[in-house]
């Protein structure tokens, strides 16, 4: 079954064949909210593009009305169902524009007014598109957005330099309405304005507390560095500072609106990267000392430093325990809170490190089905599963499991699937568990491309769509529609839960993640 293409849709983002309107309208109809259009909307150099969250019913209605946007609205009204809400694209539109990272809300038509209101109220961005149009919500982010465990909220962090030091602003956006619900501002008055600040937000399990770990790197005086030209043989002189990093914590109690911190941890010099997990009562922070803090020489070799994990009571800047952690150093590995209140990070793409909240004791758990390597790095997806379980997927070896943390991480379900052509790169999400835990959606195998869905209980494939396209990531939208992202337009492809193709859409955005 081929993809549906809306023949005369008015919905921005839905591929259209109508090109007899004005330039701006053509831009929207073509699914590209162009840089020019964005500039007209006051967005600046950050360009975004958006599409409605469509279901099969929306497309069926579109076939009769000729308007996907109208169909989507009508479906909600006629069916009595709530708007599907929003999802967010994160990425950049141009490789050569400074501060070009941006987030874009993709909204159902019924919620578009709320989106515009939110955007205007926060002065983060503005957009001039019509109902159901894309809604740019933030630009110049300091780090990738972070979603709450229940996927209801999104934290967006920016850092601005001021004469009194860097200022960190975190906006908490409600995903359903795409409105910025709250905003927290943390001024780092003790820090030079030239500092580089890496912000790592993390929500508590119930999303009422937002903790921030700030990796603060301060440049020293610049020194002249002579570098030999590897090709020409000449010498180039550059000026470069030595950087020294430390960490600080801040806490945003969303129930009261109170911000506490920054609490400086006094761990300079350490490496700015950290791994962070929040439970209802504790904040786990893995950090690594800077090896230059210890005298080193070739005649007296010293082993690389070990990381440490500290456990902070939420809201406090003093750790109640700090213990050494086995390698590897923290920095991007999946990590999450367990139902027990302990924390786990998945390291080396094969082993769980579980830290007990009470004692700091660490257990290493090998997840046997995933204990297989490849020449290339093998990304791991780790998300909460049904009934307080843990979902783990390793697309490079075509394997996904559901494990039970309460039973020594025993494997409840084990599904094998064909490994995709490019298991590493682009979007991290290449295997997704349905909310019920009954279906596993994966990118199709290297030969077939497309997508596939498996019954988790039996491990058997129950559906597939293969058009030869190699998608780089897939997501389940709030409506239950499956969204696949590919490298070239139409970059967004919508599928029913059974993997029937629904629609495709163009976007001028290089999508790095979907929320």
């Amino acid at each position, binding site marked *: 079954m081929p993809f549906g293409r809306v023949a005369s849709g008015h919905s921005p983002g839905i591929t259209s064949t109508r090109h007899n309107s004005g330039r701006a309208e053509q831009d929207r109809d073509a699914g590209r909210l162009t840089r020019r259009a964005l500039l007209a909307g006051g967005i600046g150099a950050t360009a975004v593009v958006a599409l409605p969250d469509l279901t099969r019913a929306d497309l069926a209605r579109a076939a009769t009305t000729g308007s996907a946007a109208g169909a989507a609205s009508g479906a909600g009204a006629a069916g009595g169902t709530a708007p599907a809400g929003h999802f967010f694209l994160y990425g*950049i539109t*141009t*490789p*050569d*524009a*400074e*501060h070009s990272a941006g987030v874009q809300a993709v909204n159902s038509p019924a919620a578009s007014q709320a989106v515009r209101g939110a955007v205007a109220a926060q002065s983060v961005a503005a957009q001039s598109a019509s109902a159901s149009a894309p809604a740019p919500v933030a630009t110049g*982010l*300091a780090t*990738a957005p972070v979603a709450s465990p229940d996927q209801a909220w999104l934290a967006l962090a920016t850092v601005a330099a001021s004469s009194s030091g860097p200022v960190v602003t975190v906006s908490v956006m409600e995903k359903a309405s795409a409105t910025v619900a709250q905003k927290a501002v943390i001024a780092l008055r003790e820090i030079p304005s030239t500092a*580089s600040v*890496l912000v790592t937000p993390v929500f508590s399990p119930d999303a009422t507390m937002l903790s921030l770990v700030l*990796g603060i*790197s301060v440049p020293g005086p610049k020194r002249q*560095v002579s570098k*030999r030209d*590897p*090709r020409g043989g000449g010498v180039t002189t*550059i000026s*470069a*500072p*030595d*950087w020294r*990093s430390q960490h600080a914590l801040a806490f945003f109690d969303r129930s009261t609106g109170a911000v506490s911190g920054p609490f400086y941890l006094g761990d300079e010099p350490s*490496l*700015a*990267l950290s791994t962070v997990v929040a439970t209802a009562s504790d904040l786990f922070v893995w950090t690594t000392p800077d*090896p230059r803090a210890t*005298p*080193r*020489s*070739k005649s007296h070799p*010293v*082993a*690389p430093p070990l990381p440490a994990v500290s456990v902070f009571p939420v809201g406090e800047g003093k750790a109640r325990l700090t213990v050494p952690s086995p*390698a*590897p*150093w923290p*920095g*991007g*590995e*999946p990590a999450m809170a367990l139902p027990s209140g302990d924390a786990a990070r998945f390291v*080396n*793409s094969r082993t769980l490190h579980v830290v007990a909240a009470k004692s700091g004791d660490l257990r290493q758990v090998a997840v046997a089905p995933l204990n297989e*390597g*490849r*020449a*290339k*790095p*093998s990304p*791991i997806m780790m998300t909460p599963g049904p009934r307080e379980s843990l979902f783990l997927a390793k697309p490079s070896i075509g394997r996904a499991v559901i494990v039970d943390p309460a039973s020594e991480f025993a494997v409840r379900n084990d599904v094998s699937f064909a490994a995709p*052509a*490019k298991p*590493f790169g*682009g*979007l*991290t999400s290449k295997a997704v568990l349905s909310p019920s835990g009954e279906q596993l959606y994966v990118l199709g195998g290297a030969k077939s491309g497309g997508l596939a869905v498996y019954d988790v209980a039996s491990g058997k494939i129950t559906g597939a769509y293969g058009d030869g396209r190699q998608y780089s*990531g897939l997501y389940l939208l709030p409506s239950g529609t499956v969204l696949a992202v590919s*490298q070239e337009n139409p970059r967004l492809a919508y599928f029913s839960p059974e993997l029937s193709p629904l629609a495709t859409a163009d976007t001028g955005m290089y999508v*790095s993640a979907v929320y």
Partner: protein
Amino acid sequence: MAGYDTAGEIQNTYSAAHSEFGSDPNFWLRYFAPSPYADVVESDPTSECVGAWESGGPRIGPIMAPDQANLASSSAQGLADAETFCAAIYSTFTSVGPLQTPANGMIYCWLDQEYSTTLSLDYWNGWADYVAGYKFANVGTQPLYACLYCDPYSPYPNCTTIGASGAAPCHAVWSSEPEPCGSLANSPSWDADACASTPTEVWQYGEQGACGYSANVDLDTGAPDFNEGNYCFYLSSEP
């Protein structure tokens, strides 16, 4: 003068590679932190170096592969990733006595940009500037050079980023395409894809998945006038 790259530990990889390809590698390109989906050298550098020595390829070059969404992010993310990368390289260098910087004093440090990944100018500049200026505190030198592993013909921004006005210098490209495969002893004639702005100096001509290799290695070679092994750490004796 071909060598291997691998996300596995050298000491646990080289025997299978030798069995499959039957000769010694010229070099190993290995992952250092932050590479959250790989084994990283600084976790056990002595064993890695013992493995490299025993493999007959006593040269190790560094690559880092962060979560790929990082590459579209800010300069602060690039700087923080580079800080950890350089610290991992430096602490490995100072933890293994016989591990030496190359005679030319230049170590090529590779940022892994996969096919479907977007590289922002902010991230690249934060990363590459930090790498270029990193000083080995014990010897006072700055031996690290920022380089990019990528697929030059990918539709995602890679060559355009490192070639942009205002981009920090990129000293070499390691191309992942094409993949004619081949063996370690008989690498194909040089045919690597290239960016307009930066020469391709290393070519991954054989990737495990595409070429059906059983050992957890990919095969790489240098350009006709370039020996990647000369831009790696080398072991002066058995660790």
